[in-house]
Structure formats: structure tokens, C-alpha cells
């Protein structure tokens, strides 16, 4: 499968809420193929999340200037109106956020939240069909007792479980692209690995492209075939993961790779 799902050309994002405009993303170009997992790495404030928000169409448009092009399956979505995007967007793009504590609505039951995008995009479905699909979806993210979880509120779940629920609700319409904005940062290491494996499995089974944003290089190395290194709103380096890890070209990439804590070093301590 060689066809292109997402192409970004010369993306610029500038904030205008202060006297001096602030550029957070600067001339970003990238391509994502169907079924591919692309990692975006970089330190905090390097523009990773802003890029993700731009792809998802979630940037508030008042005090910022956005330039460039984002093509999703040949449709330009960056400058399209909200009503135009809405039809296909939620259906084709799903998102998982960093903080599992705030990514679920505290006053709604899990099942209701998982079903929400079905209610919007598959209005012809009956209640029973929606329920069946929601349970399936909860099962596919390896939650035990999906029927019980369905009826629970978010505060009754642990962080890792909530993140699974998030993945379930993002994946329920089987989107072509899943944006994972630091999905593992707030979780502990064992859960991190489970979530990464889960994403890997979903990618294989449903052929969903994943845009995996993280500052954790060791996770990115395990999950992604290709990576994109960002620094100060610019792409520093892009290419095959293996290539970049073994022969980093740029000084910044070397620095990042050098910053991965190694077990051998720890042993010496």
C-alpha cells in the first residue's frame, strides 16, 4: 500500500496574542502513508502538539495565523470551514490526548462517551447496535469486563484504563488516521508498554495510520517505522527510525538520542 493519506506542505503557525508574533511551527513538511506509523519527537515546546492540533482541525482561529496546506486524502482541510470538515473528520481522524484525567468527561458514563461519535456519524444505527459495537470496541482495547466498564464513570477507572477507553472511543468509527498526542506520558512504564503494544496491534489489524507524538525516544523506536525530529518549530531530521538511530545526521538528533537513559549506565551507579 503506497498511497498517501496525509500530506503537509509548508505548515506555519503563528500566535498573535502578544505584540511580537510568535512562530510555533515553521515550514513543516511531512507525508504519511496508509497503515504507517510515524513518530514525531522533540522537546517540549517544539511544536509537536500544535502540528497535531492543526491536522485535527482543533486550533482556535482567533489570535493565530496559519499558513500552508494539509491534504487529507486529497482534500485540503486546513482552510476548510468547520461544517465542511465535520462530515468526514471525526469519522476518519481520531485523537488520543496526553492526560487521561481530563480527556474523558467526568459527568458522563464511559459507554455514552465511547458511543458519541457513532451517534454523530452513524445515526442510522439502533441503540442495540451501538451498544454491541461499543462493547466490541472496549474489548478490542483489552479492557476486562467491558459490560461493567460501559456503565462506569471515568473517576472509577485508573489512568491506564482511561487511556484504553480513549483509544476505544477514538477507534470506534475505524478512522484512517489516529493522532496520539503523547498518549503514554502520564502513565507508568509498564502501562506505557501495554498501550504501545495495543496501538501496534490496532495498526496491524485495522490498517490505521498512526501519528505518534512523544518525547520518549525509546518508545518511538519500538513503535514507529519512520520518525520526524522537531526542534523550535522546524523539522530537524526525518527518515527511517533505524537509520536515524544508527546514523543521526544533525547535532540535535544526536543530543536527543544521547539523552535516553541507558540501563548499563544505571548499573554503574
Amino acid at each position, binding site marked *: 500500500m503506497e498511497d498517501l493519506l496525509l500530506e503537509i506542505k509548508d505548515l506555519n503557525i503563528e500566535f498573535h496574542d502578544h505584540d511580537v508574533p510568535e512562530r510555533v511551527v515553521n515550514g513543516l513538511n511531512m507525508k504519511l502513508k496508509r497503515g504507517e506509523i510515524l513518530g514525531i519527537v522533540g522537546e517540549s515546546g517544539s511544536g509537536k502538539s500544535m502540528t497535531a492540533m492543526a491536522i485535527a482541525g*482543533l486550533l482556535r482561529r482567533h489570535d493565530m495565523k496559519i499558513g500552508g496546506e494539509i491534504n487529507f486524502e486529497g482534500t485540503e482541510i486546513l482552510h476548510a470551514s468547520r461544517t465542511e470538515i465535520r462530515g468526514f473528520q*471525526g469519522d476518519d*481522524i481520531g*485523537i488520543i*490526548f496526553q492526560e487521561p484525567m481530563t*480527556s474523558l468527561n467526568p459527568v458522563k458514563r464511559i459507554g455514552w462517551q465511547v458511543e458519541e461519535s457513532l451517534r*454523530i456519524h452513524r445515526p442510522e444505527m439502533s441503540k442495540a447496535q451501538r451498544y454491541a459495537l461499543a462493547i466490541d470496541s472496549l474489548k478490542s482495547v483489552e479492557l476486562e469486563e467491558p459490560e461493567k466498564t460501559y456503565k462506569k464513570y471515568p473517576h472509577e477507572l485508573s489512568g491506564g484504563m482511561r487511556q484504553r477507553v480513549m483509544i476505544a472511543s477514538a477507534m470506534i468509527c475505524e478512522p484512517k488516521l489516529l493522532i496520539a498526542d503523547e498518549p503514554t506520558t502520564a502513565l507508568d512504564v509498564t502501562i506505557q508498554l501495554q498501550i504501545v503494544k495495543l496501538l501496534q496491534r490496532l495498526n496491524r489489524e485495522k490498517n490505521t495510520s498512526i501519528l505518534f507524538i512523544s518525547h520518549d525516544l525509546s518508545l518511538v523506536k519500538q513503535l514507529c517505522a519512520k520518525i520526524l525530529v522537531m526542534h523550535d518549530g522546524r523539522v530537524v531530521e526525518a527518515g527511517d527510525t533505524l537509520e536515524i538511530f544508527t546514523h543521526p545526521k544533525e547535532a540535535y538528533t544526536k543530543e536527543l538520542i544521547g539523552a535516553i537513559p541507558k540501563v548499563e549506565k544505571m548499573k554503574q551507579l
Partner: protein
Amino acid sequence: MKKWKSYPVNFRIGAVITGIMLLLIVVGFFYTPYNPTGMDNSAKLAAPSLRHIMGCDNFGRDIFSRVLKGMGNTFLIALATVAIGVVCGIIVGAFTGYYGGWLDEILMRVNDVVFAFPSILLALVFVSIFGTGKYNVVLALGIAFVPSFARIVRGEFIKYRDMDYVKSARLAGVSSLRIIFVHILPNTMTVLLSSIMIGFNNAVLAEAGMSYLGIGVQPPDASLGSMLSEAQTYLFSAPNYAVFPGLMIILMVLGFSLLADGIKER
């Protein structure tokens, strides 16, 4: 259901007082010991006794019966006032808070202008233009109550509009109206509930004030405020005439305040 004992003390006391008040109000709608507007010449300004437990007023009307009816009137007016304030406040606050931008600027400046007038003054102006009567009072007080609710709701919406679950709902293609009323509004309920209670108290007091000034409930219909106003002349000869309606106002307000405090503490 949580155990009764696990609620804060003020919540429990408030609930008991409010419960008794509501019971009296409901009873008052269906049954009063005497006709609240029926006059009895032989019982003018009668002191409290077993026949008239709160005594009688200057026309020989049973004060207890009038208090029951008056509480009902006061309660309904306060309820309607708060309802107008809350519904309009939610609509204004939700849209300004969620969208921001120029809509926010315009509506909030209008809001500030209304907010700048004391509610009683605003209601007085309104009533002097449209005439006296309880419906005009409800409308006038209701409008005066909108700004404070709008501000509270707006603040909450600003807090929630950039939450991740709102973002993911937006991404899922949920319409703005559905996000506002189905996804965000239920989250504001705890804050809204206690401010509704406080608003209700203010409405009870405002209604009593308006009726005291003679522009609310019109005689011979009773309201706690109008009874206080009538009792003023007889304050020394028949203190019970003023004390009982006043006591009822205090209890209603106290009950709701304690309840509101308790809800906030939980």
C-alpha cells in the same frame, strides 16, 4: 444513596428547615384553617390563641392562613424569577463563554450595564413603566438576575471549553450546540446549583422588598412582604402580626443558605 449522617451538618439542618417550609407551602395550596381573605370583625388584631395560632390582623383575617398562602406566593415568585434568570443566564453565559470573541465582548458589556444597576432599582423602574402586579415583578426581577448567572456560567464554560474531552468531541464532529448543552453544561451543575440556591434567597428577599414597597403582590392577595408592610402600623399593638411573616422569611432564606453551603462543601 449516601447515608444521611455523612452529609455536612449545615446541609442536614438546611434540608430539614427547607423540607418543613416546602411542606407548609404545599399544604397552603390545598388547605388553610381559615379563608385567608375572609374577615372576622370580632377577631380584629386578636392575639395568638388556640383558635388562631398566629393571631389575627387588623381586618380579623387569620395570620397563619395568610402566612401559608403568602409563603406560596413568595415561593412561586422567587422560583419563577430564578428560573428566568437561570435559563437566560445559561444561554448568554454558555455562548459567550464557549465562543468568546466579539460575541462575548458585546453581550458581556450589555451584561455589565444591567449588572451595574441594583436589582431592586431595576425592578422599580421596570414596574413603574409596565405597571404593578406579580407577573411584572417576576419579569423585572428575572431580568435583573440574568447577569450574575451569566457570569457564573460563562466562567465555567471558559474553564471547560479547552478540556481534552471537549476537543475530542469537536474532533468527533459533534455540533457546537450539542457540545455546549450535552457535553459541557452538566459539568457546570455543581457550581450552578449552589448559586441557584443563593439566587433563590435573593429572590425571596427581593420579592418581600417589592411587596413591602407595595408594587409586588396586590391586596387582598397575601405575600410575606406585603404582610410585613401592613403590619408595620401595628408593630407595638400587635407584634405577632409582623413577627410571624418575618420569621417565615428568615426560615426560608436560612434553610436555603444552609443547603447551598452544604452542597458547596460536599
